[in-house]
């Protein structure tokens, strides 16, 4: 017993002394992080990582050659601790995921029979690959081979599919892909991705101002993956419900099916899945990146502001919205009548955005209730100005300020906010845009006897949506074309009693290809109306600039249309930390334009907050189309009628503000989704069994 004790005492002391002394004597400086990292490795010196012991592994990690997750037996906490020591920032806590952008698979035709090394890399260097499509998937599965985690497999259609649960975001597939179509991106990168020239994009997706991946969500709808479809839309558009109702869908104009048949009813399908989510009773979870600790003020709670706030929040910034009106929504709340976009729907949608953790302050007007100074003082790192375009242009004719004369947006907004307004019996609305139609359709619902729409050119030139025009026609609106108002006639009380206009005729086409209206001398005609609403166009209200006492405000430059001057690609204004978007930047435009602008601004703000140069995305395809993707003919299409949008019968709708357009029934939606050709740049799935291209 005693011997044992003494023996062990001796040998322990000896070893202790030798080790402690030698640790002093043989002290060598090394990066202190190596020791720290080593402390957080499993320390079994098992060699399982392929390195000679834990300290060698630690050295490799510190030198950056290996990932913090190198140690095969380390716990999750251990890996996190190592990551922390290595100072890997919050961004990497956001797991990157692989994402295959080309779903074309075997659809693109071959230019030749290939014989040789069976890898994408090898084939890609032989005349650019055998596929006719220059940007698409070669399909020999280099990415599948490259993935060490079995997260990529070759799908039945000949293009790789990523299993999200298995993907660790190592980037091996991306490196292996010679066509750059498999991308490993974090959520932030995915949200902030803008269409680029080399992307495999369908014409619709190129056209959509919000850059929604349209074929993908239609395909998901087709497969019954409604939730996934909503998520796909939400990657680009925070307001699918609103857009699904009011978007004039420029995408459908480019739809390849429309070349030979009627275009796919893209917007209806968007509305279908968006309504599906709303009616399902629960909200789909929206993921956000970890907090970055930066604060952004969004001025204006309209589509641009909401979009910008939504995307900033999702990439981890803290966002507060300031809104002058009592409620958020901007033009889509106050400018779009209830029968097109019920307030209930809008409220539900906006609530979803606010639920991400965005604070909204309403009833506060920029320049009056708060200003640049107060924002800076409150610690906001950047400001987004999405103040919209609320100031109507005047007609510039005599009698415009008579009683019974209104400005379009102003009138709609006052009506929407429930203001009592005196109504006449007959009304004339001047203008051919959607606002004008909104005005007339609202007026007719208010029980007016006769409502005219007065437009300078013909029906063909009307900028309003076709469906809207048709609906207005159905509802009994009288259209007065080729008429230029010259004067509002008033009675002695200063009340408007008529609108005098000059008849026009079409002359030579102008630069834009539209035939210019030319006045017909002496053709003055008078419409007997007691209400005149001019809804010709709007501009932003620049009054904030004078009202804000902050001197820096003087540096904010405006254009001659009173929009905020900004770089169209980055939306950065003349003051570096102020960004803009939506109507405030572009003048009156579409809701989707504002949504796209909001996202674009969010990207710039993110860059700005990270201290990086605010530069446009490389090879951006902003509002341009890839030439080769626009076809003049599309073969192999069997014509199928486009789904007809169900709507309330005219009898039912005229005396109420109930929503007119109804959602497609499920079967109809599927049928419509089936019409989609699932295009990419040059390939598409036609109705026939034979995939063809170009």
């Amino acid at each position, binding site marked *: 017993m005693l011997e044992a004790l003494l023996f062990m005492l001796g040998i322990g002391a000896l070893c202790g002394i030798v080790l402690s002394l*030698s640790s002093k004597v043989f002290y060598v400086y090394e990066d202190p992080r190596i020791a720290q990292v080593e402390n957080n490795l499993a320390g079994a010196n098992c060699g399982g990582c392929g390195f000679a012991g834990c300290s060698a592994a630690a050295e490799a990690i510190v030198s950056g050659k290996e990932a913090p997750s190198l140690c095969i037996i380390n716990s999750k906490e251990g890996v996190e601790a190592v990551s922390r020591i290595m100072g890997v920032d919050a961004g990497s806590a956001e797991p990157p995921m692989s994402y295959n952008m080309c779903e074309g698979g075997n659809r693109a035709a071959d230019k030749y029979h290939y014989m040789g090394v069976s890898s994408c890399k090898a084939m890609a260097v032989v005349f650019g690959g055998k596929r006719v499509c220059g940007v698409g998937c070669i399909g020999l599965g280099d990415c599948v081979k490259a993935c060490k985690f079995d997260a990529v497999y070759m799908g039945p259609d000949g293009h790789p599919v990523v299993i999200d649960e298995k993907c660790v975001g190592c980037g091996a597939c991306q490196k292996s892909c010679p066509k750059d179509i498999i991308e490993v991106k974090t959520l932030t990168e995915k949200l902030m991705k803008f269409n680029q020239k080399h992307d495999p994009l369908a014409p619709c997706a190129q056209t959509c101002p919000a850059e929604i991946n349209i074929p993908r969500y239609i395909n998901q709808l087709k497969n019954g993956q409604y939730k996934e479809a909503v998520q796909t839309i939400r990657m680009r558009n925070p307001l699918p419900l609103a857009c699904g109702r009011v978007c004039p869908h420029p995408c459908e104009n480019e739809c390849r099916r429309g070349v030979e048949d009627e275009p796919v009813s893209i917007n209806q399908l968007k509305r279908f899945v968006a309504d599906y989510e709303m009616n399902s009773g629960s909200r789909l979870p929206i993921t956000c990146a970890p907090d970055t600790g930066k604060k952004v003020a969004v001025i204006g709670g309209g589509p641009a502001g909401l979009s910008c706030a939504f995307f900033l929040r999702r990439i981890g910034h803290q966002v507060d919205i300031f809104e002058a009106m009592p409620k958020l929504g901007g033009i889509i709340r106050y400018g779009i009548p209830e029968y097109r976009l019920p307030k209930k729907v809008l409220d539900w949608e906006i609530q979803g955005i606010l639920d991400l953790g965005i604070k909204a302050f309403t009833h506060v007007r920029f320049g009056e209730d708060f200003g640049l100074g107060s924002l800076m003082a409150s610690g906001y790192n950047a400001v987004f100005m999405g103040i919209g375009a609320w100031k109507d242009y005047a007609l510039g004719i005599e009698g415009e300020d008579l009683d019974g004369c209104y400005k379009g947006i102003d009138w709609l907004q006052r009506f929407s906010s429930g203001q009592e307004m005196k109504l006449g019996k007959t009304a004339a609305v001047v203008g051919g845009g959607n606002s004008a139609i909104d005005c007339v359709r609202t007026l007719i619902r208010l029980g007016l006897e006769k409502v005219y729409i007065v437009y300078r050119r013909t029906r063909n030139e009307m900028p309003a949506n076709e469906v809207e025009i048709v609906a207005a026609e159905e509802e009994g609106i009288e259209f007065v074309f080729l008429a230029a108002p010259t004067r509002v006639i008033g009675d002695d009380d200063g009340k408007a009693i008529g609108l005098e206009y000059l008849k026009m005729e079409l002359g030579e086409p102008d630069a834009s290809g539209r035939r210019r209206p030319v006045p017909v001398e002496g053709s003055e005609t008078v419409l007997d109306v007691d209400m005149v609403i001019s809804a010709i166009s709007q501009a932003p209200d620049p009054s904030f600039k004078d009202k804000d006492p902050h001197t820096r405000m003087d540096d904010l430059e405006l254009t001659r249309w009173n929009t905020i001057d900004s770089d169209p690609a980055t939306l950065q204004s003349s003051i570096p930390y102020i960004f803009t978007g939506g109507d405030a930047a572009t003048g009156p435009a579409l809701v989707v334009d504002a949504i796209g602008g909001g996202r674009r601004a969010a990207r710039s703000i993110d860059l700005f907050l990270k201290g990086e140069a605010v530069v446009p995305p490389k090879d951006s395809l902003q509002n341009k189309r890839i030439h080769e993707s626009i076809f003049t003919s599309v073969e192999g299409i069997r014509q199928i009628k486009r789904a007809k949008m169900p709507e309330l019968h005219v009898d039912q709708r005229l005396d109420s503000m109930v929503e007119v357009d109804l959602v497609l029934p499920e079967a109809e939606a599927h049928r419509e989704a089936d019409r989609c050709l699932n295009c990419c740049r040059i390939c598409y799935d036609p109705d026939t069994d034979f995939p063809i291209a170009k």
Partner: protein
Amino acid sequence: MEYFELAIGCIFINNILLAQFLGNCPFLGTSKKMETAVGMSMAVVFVMVMAGIFTWTVDTYLLKGLGVEYLRTVSFILVIASLVQFVEMFLKKSIPGLYAGLGIFLPLITTNCAVMGACLLNISKEYSFMQALAASFFYAIGFGLALILFAGVRERINLARVPKALQDTSIGLVTAGMIALTFTAFKGMV
């Protein structure tokens, strides 16, 4: 001749890796590349000989002297661990060149059962000091030989189209089995 037989026995017949199953973790871990295998082999030779000397001395003069043989495990491993750590620190400071080549493998050896196993075998076979020294050395050579041969084969296997489930360790073990099989060729030669 006695040492020749010892050598054949320790290197081929009773190969510490393939017949005694000792030191398999680093065997699989460091055999993916030839360079690592060579480095590891050298380090094992060095440490095993040192450990053989130290443990034999401790056993003969202290453990047996004091009649506390049952403390063999504790004292041996403590001696080996301390020795390895000491050598590592020494090399790092004094001979950085050698450290870069061999030293980085030293930590792997602390928990290399081959070293501990060889020391215990020396004692259980009641070798003399010189025998223990030689046996340690030859065991280490056997370890190194198996490791290097294995690394050679494994470098090729890593490039072959091994089914996914079998890749890496799995096929490594099967290959090790094949090597163990071939090493039975030396059976009966001494």
